[in-house]
């Protein structure tokens, strides 16, 4: 079950004609899909659209009531392949995944889908993981739209526009027999707002009906000679059809006051931030009414020649605001203007940066220089922006004290002890070539562990070590998470290692969930899931594919055990892939599961135990070696009140979940005995209470006996 539950929120999906919906973007999209009569939905989780998958999963009942099939696909490729249902059948289908990496994975299926063309509307909802808060390489999905001839919709970031874009996307797809990508930025996915709802619509033709009336059409198969025909069709039929549909339906928006000598062209997703800057420059009001002509591309691919040229016809200059690189849109517009022998001057990446997110500050600089270049009058920002000097001085003052704070393992994360053990093995056997993978475990590359120096894609960690797997003085190590394992790793990494007789060590980290994306279930999840088949162990899977050296550890907090298994894997005579499966439940999810049960038992005065760790301050000497082998947010420091000490001592805060890593690591690394584990017993049973009291009295007596023989320095509160 996912980290965040939408069980309450999905009830809003039942709203009907004329009701008001208030909530998050992802829910709004789901509602729009249902209103559009979608026949099947699917996808693969990943920020920023993970929650869309969670909403769909939590809404499964509502979906099936409407005869909508929901599939939690095994990967983006699987999701894109599912859209195949819309090739021959008039069924609307939608899948979702993250861009650009999800699109990379899906591209094989997407290219085939685009070549074949669709009968029912096919929508690919992409959460573009670009800019602040992103966790991947910075690229654009746009290139995939261009190469495969898939249309791309980028609505203005407000719920009304996003909801409208879903319906428009299906219509555009059907009018042009082409799949459509719906692009949303990171913050657009989690944007809140309101819109008026319509009734949900049962799909006019369901997947069940399709099964009883199978269809096929040889012209849709991607094989020569049809594939040559399909290319011609894309360019000569579907493309012009799209251009005329977009123009006729006014999917792009032009907001033009009379006599505007200059204009701004932008991707729909940039609209709000551009308006916000124009407001500050005194050129737009709160509702977006601007003094300058705006051409908002709600469809960024294909671009519409005559619409754009018409917009430019009475303007001296236009500025293209296009986030990301390279400047595909600007180049296309440039060639349109050139061919039309237009006198309108084109600005874009020469005033705005080529790479990086277009934040308010970046846009402000770009727009101001555009207005200066074109002698367009504007006011100084209403609210004086901090002079760059003031900000520079703040930066200079604080840059030394304000520490960077990259994301890292959560409190009590079961992956932490795995990397602590690897660090300890490194101390014994020296450094090894280590390849990482995608998932929470990639945080190990950051301090304090600094383990692994590369990541080549989801499930490709072991595959990325292939060049080193022929053997040498030291073995290579690679990491693979359970998410990556089922996504692609089983075949591309493990199968590859078996087939090539790799003399390598592969550590598979199994935390029972696709944890980094928000705790979705996987085939190896231990939880019961009513609609999915779980409990397929990774150990059986790798054995099934031909691995014979497999070690399973069911408690990753056993640092010493892990250390000795790693040691064995790195030194054994056995030549072939050695797989260590380290399993412990993701702590975030475990807490989410156990905490309500615990609270309930406590409320009912039942006997419960809670574990926390502590540090004996007078034993800790402030070397912080424990922190360098842990990095747990809960294990922190505090200034000692002892004037004899210079350095802060370790301290464990309230958020400790008692995972035990501190004690295990301190013991395994022989650091110091200052950690203790405290099992807090609440509401103990009668007999237990009696026995505890007796024991405590006896201990107390011994303590006092000794205390009487020495000087007792008792602190008095100041």
């Amino acid at each position: 079950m996912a980290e965040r539950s939408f069980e309450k929120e999905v009830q809003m999906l039942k709203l009907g004609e004329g009701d008001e919906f208030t909530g998050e973007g992802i829910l709004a999209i789901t509602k729009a899909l249902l209103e559009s009569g979608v026949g099947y939905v699917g996808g693969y989780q990943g920020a920023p659209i993970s929650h869309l998958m969670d909403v769909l999963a939590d809404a499964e009942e509502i979906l099936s009531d409407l005869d909508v099939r929901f599939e939690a696909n095994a990967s983006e490729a699987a999701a894109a392949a599912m859209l195949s249902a819309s090739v021959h059948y008039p069924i609307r289908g939608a899948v979702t995944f993250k861009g650009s990496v999800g699109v990379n994975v899906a591209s094989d299926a997407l290219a085939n889908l685009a070549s074949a063309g669709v009968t029912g509307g096919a929508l690919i909802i992409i959460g573009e993981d670009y800019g602040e808060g992103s966790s991947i390489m910075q690229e654009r999905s746009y290139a995939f739209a261009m190469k495969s001839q898939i249309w791309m919709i980028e609505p203005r970031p407000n719920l009304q526009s996003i909801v409208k874009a879903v319906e428009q996307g299906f219509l555009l797809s059907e009018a042009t027999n082409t799949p459509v990508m719906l692009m949303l930025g990171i913050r657009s996915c989690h944007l809140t707002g309101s819109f008026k709802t319509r009734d949900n619509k049962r799909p006019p033709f369901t997947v069940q009906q399709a099964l009883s009336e199978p269809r096929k059409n040889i012209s849709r198969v991607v094989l020569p000679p049809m594939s040559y025909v399909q290319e011609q069709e894309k360019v000569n039929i579907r493309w012009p059809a799209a251009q005329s549909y977009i123009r006729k339906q006014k999917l792009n928006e032009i907001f033009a006051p009379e006599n505007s000598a200059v204009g701004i062209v932008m991707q729909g997703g940039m609209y709000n931030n551009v308006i916000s800057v124009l407001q500050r420059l005194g050129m737009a009001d709160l509702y977006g009414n601007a003094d300058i002509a705006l051409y908002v591309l709600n469809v960024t691919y294909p671009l519409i020649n005559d619409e754009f040229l018409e917009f430019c016809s009475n303007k001296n200059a236009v500025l293209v605001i296009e986030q990301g690189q390279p400047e595909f849109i600007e180049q296309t517009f440039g060639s349109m203007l050139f061919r039309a022998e237009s006198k309108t001057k084109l600005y874009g990446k020469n005033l705005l940066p080529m790479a990086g997110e277009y934040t308010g500050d970046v846009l402000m600089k770009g727009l101001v220089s555009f207005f200066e270049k074109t002698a367009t009058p504007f006011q100084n920002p209403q609210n004086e922006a901090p002079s760059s000097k003031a900000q520079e001085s703040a930066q200079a003052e604080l840059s030394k004290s304000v520490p960077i704070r990259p994301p890292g393992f959560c409190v009590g994360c079961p992956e932490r002890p795995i990397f602590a053990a690897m660090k300890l093995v490194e101390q014994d056997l020296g450094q090894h070539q280590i390849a990482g993978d995608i998932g929470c475990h990639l945080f190990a590359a950051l301090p304090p562990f600094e383990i692994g120096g590369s990541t080549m894609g989801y499930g490709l960690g072991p595959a990325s070590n292939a060049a080193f797997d022929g053997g040498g003085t030291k073995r290579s190590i690679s990491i693979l998470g359970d998410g990556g394992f089922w996504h692609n790793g089983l075949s591309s990494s493990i199968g590859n290692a078996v087939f090539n007789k790799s003399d390598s060590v592969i550590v598979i980290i199994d935390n029972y969930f696709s944890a980094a994306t928000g705790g979705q279930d996987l085939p190896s999840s231990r939880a019961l899931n009513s609609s999915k088949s779980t409990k397929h162990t990774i150990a059986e899977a790798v054995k099934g594919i031909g691995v014979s050296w497999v070690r399973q550890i069911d408690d990753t907090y056993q640092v010493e055990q892990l250390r000795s298994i790693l040691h064995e894997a790195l030194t054994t005579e056995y030549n072939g892939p050695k797989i260590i499966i380290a399993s412990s439940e993701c702590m975030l999810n475990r807490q989410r599961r156990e905490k309500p049960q615990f609270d309930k038992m406590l409320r009912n005065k039942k006997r419960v135990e809670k574990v926390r760790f502590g540090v004996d301050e007078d034993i800790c000497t402030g070397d912080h070696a424990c922190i360098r082998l842990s990095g747990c947010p809960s294990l922190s420091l505090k200034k000692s009140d002892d004037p004899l000490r210079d350095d802060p001592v370790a301290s464990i805060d309230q958020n400790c979940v008692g995972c035990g890593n501190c004690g295990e690591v301190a013991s395994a690394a022989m650091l110091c005995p200052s950690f203790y584990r405290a099992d807090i017993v609440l509401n103990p049973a009668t007999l237990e209470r009696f026995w505890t009291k007796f024991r405590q009295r006896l201990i107390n007596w011994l303590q006092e006996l000794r205390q009487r023989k020495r000087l007792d320095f008792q602190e008095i509160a100041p």
Partner: protein
Amino acid sequence: MNINSAESAVTANFPEDAAVIKLAIMAVGGQGGGVLTKWIEQCARSNGYAVQATSVAGVAQRTGATIYYIEMAPAIVDSPVFALMPAAGDVDILIAAEMMEAGRAIMRGFVTPDRTTLIASEHRILALSEKSVPGDGISKNEEILEAAKKHAKRQIIFDMEKIAVDAGSVISASLFGALAGSKALPFSRESFEASIKASGRGVEASLDVFSAAYDKVENPEILSTHISPRKTASSCKVVAKPTLLAAWNVLEEEAEKLPETVRQIALIGLRKVVDYQDTKYGHEYLNRLTQVMQSDDPKNEFRLSCETAKHLANAMTYDDVIRVADLKTRKARNVRINKEMGIHGEDYLKITEFLHPRAEEIVGMLPNKLGCFIEQRPGIMALIERFFSRKRLVRTDSLLGFIQLYFLGGLRTFRRRSYRYKIEQKHIDNWLSSALSLLPNDYNLALEVIRARRLIKGYGDTHSRGLTKFDRVLDGISLLTAHKESAYWAQKLQAAALDHEDDIQLKKTLQNIRSLA
């Protein structure tokens, strides 16, 4: 947006120039920024505002710095157009859920003197880079507070985490209370509270915290932050049977003879040493200290003696098995832990200690000659290592576990005869005499020799590592005797040793020193 004009708009009549209010929340992932955002949205909507909130979800939120952003404006006719993220110089209210996040907000230009109300919690969540330094790498709040004064139009800063934790709730409630109390949003207190009630989870605790934070903003006199003072010589009373007390009084009288500046710290050191061993050990401490003091120069305000009082006490109370066992079996410790874990009534604790003695620790406990004999025979050491060195979990709340450690703690009376004792005393004497030998020619360098003791810490591997670093720093210092900036370089050496676990920095500094010589 002018906050003052918005303040007058508590009623439903929006002022004509009503504009957008821009609010950013900077937090550390996991602090509950999402809940706070929901409350603020709910509150604004209930007051007839159009609201838009944005956040970043996913991996970026796992314990890293994250920003929530809210824009709101009176919903009059059309839907306002709201930005998706904050821009420099364009934020009315900045809520920082942690002190360094407030600093980050200032650095990014989200706090400006013309308009920004800064609401920040003064508590710290240390970043890994601050925690992992072997010495003290914690950033200072003072710099952020100073910058906040300069950059914010108005600032409300206090420890909002403490208010929340004390009441068994989370910081989102106190931040929300401080926001309401600041009156930076034109909404009534009731409508803020209604949003908490509407959320339906942990409502009562949240409301308590909300109101505590609200009141704190209203009554600035209780805004002062509480910083617990360091212990002083007088913050302690001595309890013991008369004979022991008499022996202690003799010691105290002797310490009274020390110059005023040295006395305070020496008394604390003395207490630690006596608590560690006995009053006789206390005399040895004072004798050693007096020896240093007699060579010290009053013109230097007895700085050397002060530092010696501190570091000598730490050196003489080195960590050994006996010490650890003693500390872990004291009554005061049980009382402290019970308090920390919030034990009431019949509830109780099971306490497990994580011990892993190495052969060195075990041999160190043996009588001097035997220990010395074994230490020089790697074969026997390896054997001991094999038999004894392993993870030992001891339950000190159980009789059996307690008695084991109680027995070890009782070996205190045999400590003087142990092998480790001899080594430590010799080490201390060498250390002091090397400082004293430098004293006549280079006071400051002698001071640095004393200070270098800070490098030796702890137990087990940590202790061995510290010892190696200490030796190398002392080697470095011996090269500096004729140098005119000797103390500066000695300080650099120590800083290098404390800055990172590995010794790359230390090696570099040593190289530099060699090239100086």
